[in-house]
C-alpha cells in the first residue's frame, strides 16, 4: 500500500468520481458503460462531465438492459478492453445475474485461462435513504457464493479509491458495492496520487480488547460510533471493516477473535445465509475454543425488503443504539 503525502478531503461520491477519472485518464483501454452515465453523468452525478471530457466511445449511455450492460462488458474484457460497467441501483442487477455468475465469473475457468474477464461492475446498494423495496437492497450474499468473482464494499473515501483502483486493475471480475447512504454523509482524506488497497484485506478501524465487531458498509460507521460511546463506559471494542467480501480476510478476523475472544458481526443484508453466517462458521471451525461467548449476528431482518414508510424502514435498519446494546451485552457475558 503506497500512501502519498498529499491528500484531499472528499466524500464517497467524490472519491468514486476521482478514482474513475484517474482510471480513464491513465489507461486508454478503460471505459464506462451503463444507464444514464453519459449525458446525465450518472443519477448521483458521479460521472458528470465525463462524456464531454472522454467522449461517447468511452462513456457509454447504454440501452436500458442490465444483462446487456454486463454481457457487452464481458465481451469487451475478453477482447482486451477494461470496461467499468455500472448498474444504476443494485436492485436492478438481477437481469444481469446470468452474465455475472454464469459468464464473467467462469470465463477464465471455462477457457482454462485462455480468456480472462477484467471487468468491474459498480453499483450503489443499501438502505436508510427512503429507497423503498427497489432502491434499498443489499445484494452481496447473492453473489459471494460464487468462486471466480471478487466483491468489494468499502465505505471510507480512501478505501474506495484504493479498492476501486485495485478492482479496475484486477485481471478478474470485481463487483464493487457502494453504500448509497455513505455517498455524501461520509468524508475523509484521500491520497492524491496513485493509491491501491489490495482486494481481500480487511482493516481494523478501531483497536480494542474486549470484543471484535466485524462489519462493512454503512454499519461500520455506526459500529465505530457505538464503540466510541462505549469507550466512555470503559468498554474496549475492536471494529474491523471487512472492505472486501470476496476474497475474505480470514487472517485479520481470526487474529482479532484470538485477542478479544468475542465476536459480533453486523450487516444490513439479511441474516439467513448472509455474510455473517460464513464468518461465524469459519470462526467456529478455526477458533471455537478461543471464544468466551457465543458468536452473535446483528443483521437485516428476514423479510423481503425494507418498506417505504419511515416506520418500516426504521424497523429494518439497525440503529447505533441497538449496536451499542449488543456490544455491551456481549462484553458483559
Amino acid at each position, binding site marked *: 500500500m503506497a500512501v502519498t503525502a498529499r491528500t484531499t478531503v472528499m466524500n464517497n461520491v467524490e472519491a468514486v468520481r476521482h478514482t474513475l477519472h484517474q482510471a480513464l485518464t491513465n489507461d486508454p483501454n478503460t*471505459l464506462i458503460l451503463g444507464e444514464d452515465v453519459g449525458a446525465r453523468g450518472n443519477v448521483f452525478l458521479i460521472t458528470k462531465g465525463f462524456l464531454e471530457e472522454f467522449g461517447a*466511445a468511452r462513456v457509454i449511455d*447504454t*440501452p436500458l*438492459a442490465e*444483462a*446487456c450492460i*454486463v*454481457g*457487452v*462488458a*464481458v*465481451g*469487451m*474484457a*475478453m*477482447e*482486451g*478492453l477494461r*470496461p467499468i460497467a455500472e448498474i444504476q441501483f443494485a436492485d436492478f442487477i438481477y*437481469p444481469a445475474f*446470468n*452474465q455475472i455468475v*454464469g*459468464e464473467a465469473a467462469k*470465463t*477464465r*475457468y*471455462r*477457457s*482454462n*485461462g*485462455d*480468456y*480472462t474477464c477484467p471487468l468491474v461492475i459498480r453499483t450503489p446498494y443499501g438502505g436508510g435513504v427512503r429507497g423503498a423495496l427497489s432502491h434499498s437492497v443489499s445484494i452481496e450474499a447473492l453473489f459471494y457464493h460464487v*468462486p*471466480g468473482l*471478487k466483491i468489494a464494499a468499502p465505505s471510507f473515501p480512501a478505501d474506495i479509491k484504493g479498492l476501486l483502483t485495485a478492482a479496475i486493475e484486477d*485481471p*478478474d471480475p470485481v463487483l464493487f458495492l457502494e453504500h448509497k447512504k455513505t455517498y455524501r454523509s461520509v468524508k475523509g482524506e484521500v491520497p492524491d496520487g496513485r493509491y491501491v488497497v489490495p482486494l481481500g484485506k480487511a482493516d481494523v478501524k478501531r483497536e480494542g480488547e474486549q470484543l471484535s465487531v466485524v462489519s462493512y458498509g454503512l454499519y461500520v460507521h455506526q459500529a465505530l460510533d457505538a464503540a466510541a460511546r462505549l469507550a466512555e463506559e470503559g468498554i474496549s471494542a475492536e471494529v474491523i471493516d471487512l472492505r472486501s467480501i470476496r*476474497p*475474505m480476510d480470514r487472517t485479520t478476523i481470526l487474529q482479532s477473535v484470538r485477542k478479544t475472544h468475542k465476536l459480533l458481526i453486523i450487516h444490513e443484508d439479511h441474516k439467513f445465509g448472509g455474510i455473517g453466517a460464513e464468518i461465524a462458521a*469459519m470462526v467456529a471451525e478455526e477458533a471455537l475454543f478461543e471464544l468466551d461467548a457465543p458468536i452473535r449476528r446483528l443483521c437485516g431482518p428476514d423479510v423481503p425488503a425494507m418498506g417505504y414508510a419511515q416506520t418500516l424502514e426504521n424497523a429494518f435498519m439497525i440503529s447505533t443504539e441497538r449496536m451499542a446494546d449488543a456490544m455491551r451485552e456481549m462484553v458483559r457475558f
Partner: protein
Amino acid sequence: MLLQRQLDNRGFQLNRQGKIPFALGSEGHEAAQTGAATALIRGKDILVPYYRDLGLCLGFGFPPSGVFNSMFARAQDGSGGRQFPNHYSDKAIGLFSVSSIIAAHCTHAVGAAFAFVYRGQTGRAVLCSTGEGATSEGEWHEAVNFAAVRKLPIVFFVENNQYAISTPQAAQMAIADVADKAPGYGIPGIACDGFDPITVYAAMKEALDRARCGGGPSIVEAKVYRFLSHSTDDDDRTYRSPQEVRDRRKCDPVPRFERVLLQAGIINDEELDALKADVLRETNEATDASESLPMPEAGELYGNVYEGAHEPWR
C-alpha cells in the same frame, strides 16, 4: 462438410462404445456452417459460436485434434477438460469460449465488435451464431438491439433447425422467418436455404462485408434441419415422427452438395472417394491421438479460478 459429418458420427460412435459420456451432433447444419465459415477472414474476424457449430469452428481453423480433446475431456482441451464436448475455446484463432447457456454469448460478441470500433479497426467483423430457439431469449434481443444502436460490425447468424430440443419453431415464435425480426431493430435481415453452402456463403459474405465497412449489423437466417436428436441424451422419437426426419433426409445437404460438385465437373467420383478416405483417416488418427492423451490432473480443479494461485476457502 465431409469432415464435420465424419467427426459428428465419431462422437456418437464413441458415446455408444462407452468411451465418452456425451456427444452433440450437427448433422443437417453442414452446408450452412461451411458457407458461413468460408465468408470469415481468418486472423481478422472473431467467431462467437454456440455448441452446435462444429463445422463453423473447423472452417475457422479449429483442428480435429481440438474436437477430440474436447470429446475426451483431455488436459489439452481448450477448457482444460472442464466443458462439455463441442464447447471450444481458442483465443489464438479468435474463437471465443463457448457457453452452454443459450444466448449468453450474444452480448459478448457485441462487446468484441465494440472493441473493433473502439480501436478504430475496420475490416474486421464478428460472427455470432445461435439456433432459432435462442432468439426467444431476452439476451439475444438485448445484444441485437445494442449492436443496431451502435452500428457495430457483427452478423447474427441464426441456424434455424426448427427444434430447440423438442420445442418446434411454431412454439418459439409467431413468425415463419427469424429474419423478420430484423426490421424491428432497424437492420437488414435475410433468410436463406441453409442446405446450400453457396447460398449461405453469398448471404454471409454480403452481411460480413457490410459490417466490416461500417454498415452495421445484420441477421442472416439459414434454414436447416437437425437430423439427429438434440444430443446423445435425447430421444427425438418422443416429439417428432421418424417419417418427418426421413423426409428431410432426402434433402441431406452433404450428398446434395456432392452431386452439385460432380455435376459441375469440379470433382469426379475417384477424387470424392479419395477425399472421403482422407477424412476417415484423419478422423481415425485424431481419435487415436486424442484418446492416448492424459486427462487433466485432479489438482487442476483449483486452477484458473483467478489469476495466480487460488487460495480456496477451506
